[in-house]
């Protein structure tokens, strides 16, 4: 019994940081409508700076002062970020906001390694809370008890801040109706900046308070952000009480999940999240939001199928690509195969996010599931390659069918967070379930059979499949289903009013996209000869988003171009620098801020401009798609 009590208390202690970070995220979202992906990065910087300060400043005062100082310092960094980056993208589609803040996260990951080195740093114990308390033979660290006491105190302070101060009243008002607050003459700029600072302060404080419990390392940002996303999805974005309750819930589920499913404890959290989403899609304490936001995939030029000339041109490009083995060496052919595979991956995401308006932040899950599917079939069942290639993607299909069912219940940022959380769950299973997946060591020796083993043959195989997939998905864009899918993207209200079950359409699109990604993953497993958890990691998901964005999210064929350019750049970049994340992160922010239409989008715009002396302008960007009462 005592053991369970201790387990419970450990859970409560873990909830403290989670609550701090999640409440910060919620407050920022409430006012600015930005889901700050970089929140995990601020949490991490908070921990690093606190580590450095506590090493320098001695004594109890030094320690606690360092914690607070670190949080303040990070909050100031947050102010800078808000003024330089976020102010430029408040009116951009939410996909862009998520991506820009993710780009920031990538940069921070490389920067902390640059400053603090790649090793785990073990911080000092907190003065006054060094020991442990004996509880019927079980030890409870006294610092845990301190953290348990801290969360309700922070909750209380936040409550007072929001209920009793002028600033708090403004924040609550802005959460309900930003435009009204602006119309009443409140300086929005500084309100937003101050809210962002407070949110970041909370995140950094959460990070700083972790140092007596956990080592500081450069991957803690992604770990916490995924948990925080789960917390806010369960608790409801924008609700501080929701963040508190959900943080406790998730931490306890983690604490006890380990006892029930020692290997895959995260399953329990997932199950609870699934139930909450079915019963209350906007979280326990959240409010349903009118879907008035702009979705990605908006285009002023209506989409049309290729003309016969354009078809010929595409065919010619394919033929030229097919001649590569005639003059290129093995390395180049391998690169070519990889690019072809990423074209498959990118067009599958494009189908979901440009055609369907559903920006998945966890698309790599289905790519990776396809790869693992192949690995299982080839290594365990010993099936021939062609069978593996055909059946492997079915694992991606099944994953997409299960997760997609829940994901399409939501839209916008909720959809993005949920898909990310799902992908992370799949990743944890691949990582933790060592007996089946090999864990971190992956599954090795998935080599292609003789007929496909030579680089040129494999290249042709990959190129052929990529061409087939691209053509098939493109045909679907202009099929009755494709029209219906675009319709759900443009106006849910209208689709429902003309007899369309939008969720079913979106779910189908999710499964199609997941299966297609699985095909890419299946080929990828054979290309690399191995499968690792990284094949379904967050960074791969973001790669896909960037490819689509770079090509042009508003175009039909941008994903292909985006994949080719991005993958080629990426492979080259990794060979040139150790700081690829720093460069990539900067690159992402650059695209989002100055180049949001992407390559193909820009070309189309130029062509349009040449054709018409007076372009009709862009009424769409200024007009909300749907505003129903």
């Amino acid at each position, binding site marked *: 019994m005592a053991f369970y009590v201790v387990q419970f208390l450990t859970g409560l202690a873990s909830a403290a940081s989670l609550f701090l970070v999640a409440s910060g995220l919620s407050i920022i979202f409430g006012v600015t409508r930005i889901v700050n992906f970089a929140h995990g990065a601020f949490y991490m910087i908070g921990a690093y700076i606190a580590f450095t300060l506590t090493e320098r400043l001695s004594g109890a005062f030094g320690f606690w002062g360092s914690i607070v100082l670190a949080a303040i310092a990070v909050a100031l960094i947050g102010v800078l970020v808000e003024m330089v980056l976020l102010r430029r993208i408040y009116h951009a589609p939410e996909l862009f906001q998520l991506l820009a803040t993710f780009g920031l996260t990538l940069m921070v990951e490389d920067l902390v390694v640059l400053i603090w080195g790649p090793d785990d740093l073990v911080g000092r114990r907190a003065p006054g809370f060094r020991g442990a308390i004996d509880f019927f033979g079980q030890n409870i660290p006294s610092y845990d008890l301190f953290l348990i006491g801290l969360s309700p105190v922070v909750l209380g302070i936040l409550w007072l801040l929001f209920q009793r101060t002028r600033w708090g009243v403004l924040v609550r008002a802005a959460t309900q109706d930003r435009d009204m607050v602006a119309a009443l003459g409140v300086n929005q700029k500084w309100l937003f900046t101050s809210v962002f600072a407070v949110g970041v302060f909370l995140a950094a404080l959460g990070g700083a308070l972790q140092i007596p419990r956990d080592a500081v390392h450069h991957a803690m940002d992604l770990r916490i952000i995924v948990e925080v996303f789960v917390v806010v999805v369960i608790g409801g974005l924008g609700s501080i009480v929701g963040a508190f309750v959900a943080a406790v819930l998730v931490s306890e589920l983690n604490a006890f999940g380990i006892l029930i499913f020692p290997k895959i404890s995260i399953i329990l959290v997932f199950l609870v999240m699934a139930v909450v989403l079915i019963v209350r899609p906007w979280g326990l304490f959240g409010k349903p939001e009118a879907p008035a936001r702009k979705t990605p*995939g*908006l*285009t*002023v*030029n*209506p*989409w*049309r*199928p290729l003309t016969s000339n354009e078809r010929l041109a595409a065919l010619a490009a394919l033929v030229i690509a097919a001649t590569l083995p005639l003059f290129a060496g093995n390395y180049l052919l391998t690169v070519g195969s990889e690019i072809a595979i990423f074209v498959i991956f990118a067009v599958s995401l494009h189908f979901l996010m440009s055609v369907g308006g559903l920006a998945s932040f966890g698309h790599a899950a289905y790519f990776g599931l396809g790869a693992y599917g192949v690995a299982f079939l080839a290594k365990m069942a010993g099936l021939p390659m062609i069978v593996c290639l055909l059946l492997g993607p079915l694992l991606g299909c099944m994953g997409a069918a299960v997760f997609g069912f829940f994901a399409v219940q939501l839209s916008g940022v909720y959809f993005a967070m949920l898909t990310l959380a799902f992908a992370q769950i799949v990743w944890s299973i691949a990582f933790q379930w060592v007996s089946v997946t090999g864990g971190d060591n992956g599954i090795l020796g998935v080599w292609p059979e003789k007929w496909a083993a030579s680089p040129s043959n494999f290249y042709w195989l990959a190129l052929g499949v990529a061409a087939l997939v691209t053509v098939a998905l493109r*045909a*679907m864009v*202009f*099929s*009755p*289903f*494709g*029209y*219906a899918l*675009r*319709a759900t*993207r*443009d*106006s849910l*209200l*209208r*689709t*429902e*009013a*003309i*007899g*369309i*079950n939008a969720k079913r*359409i979106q779910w*189908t699109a999710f499964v*199609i996209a997941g299966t297609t990604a699985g095909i890419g993953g299946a080929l990828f497993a054979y290309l690399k000869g191995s499968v690792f958890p990284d094949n379904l990691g967050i960074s791969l998901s973001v790669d896909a988003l960037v490819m689509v964005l770079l090509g042009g999210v508003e175009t039909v064929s941008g994903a292909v171009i985006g994949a080719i350019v991005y993958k080629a750049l990426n492979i080259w970049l990794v060979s040139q620098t150790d700081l690829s994340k720093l460069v990539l992160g900067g690159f992402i922010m650059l695209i989002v801020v100055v180049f949001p239409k992407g390559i193909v989008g820009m070309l189309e715009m130029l062509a349009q401009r040449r054709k018409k002396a007076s372009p*009709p302008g862009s*009424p*769409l960007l200024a*007009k909300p*798609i*749907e*505003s*129903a*009462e």
Partner: protein
Amino acid sequence: MSIASPLLAVEGLTKSYGGIHAVRGVSFSLRAGEILALIGPNGAGKSTCFDMLNGQNKPDTGQVRLLGDDITARKPREVWRLGVGRTFQITATFATMTVRENVQVALISHEKQLFNLFGSAPNFDRGEAGRLLELVGMSGYADRPCGELAYGDLKRLELAVALANQPKLLLMDEPTAGMAPRERVDLMRLTAQIAREKSIGVLFTEHDMDVVFEHADRIIVLNRGTLIAEGTPAEVRGNPQVQAVYLGEGLVYDARHREGASA
């Protein structure tokens, strides 16, 4: 079509939000081919009432019957499949798609081809789409993206979309709001003509009294959630209770509202 049951029969519809009774015990009926106007000052409960007719909103109590069948608990998409088309007060169209594509989506849904993955949508029922656009006078705009259209044209497009499943009943929430006076007359004349030809019942809400009195066969008047009058335009015009709620305050407020809607 059954002779016994009217096209639409509404009985005792009630809805409250918290302590506010938005709609209280509203009952009325509508025959096929009849044009019925639902009017009332702002806040009278018109939109709430309207939304409960096609499942957009669920009443607390009361019943909506279509040709005798209870459709109260149905979802909007199911109600549409039973032959009820609807247009919205603030238009809802597919902004990135062309005018023709908007109509084609409705036709695809009507013909249950939504999950057809490899057919050609650009050629889907082009003829029928063209006829519908012709009917509402939008043929010239077929290839324009609908995000570029003027508001009045969007309203006409919505009418074409609503007609795509050959409805028995059309629900039109302020069909002429935001339109120029000339357009209003044209649209309502068109609607009336279609309704008579195809024997479609039309229920519409409207703020413009000229439109209402010219085109409605019958008028029902809501005030504070209750039905206060019902009858032919002449009867309603002469009703002292209606004059009391409508003259003065109500009209001033109306004019302001319209400005806001067209902005």
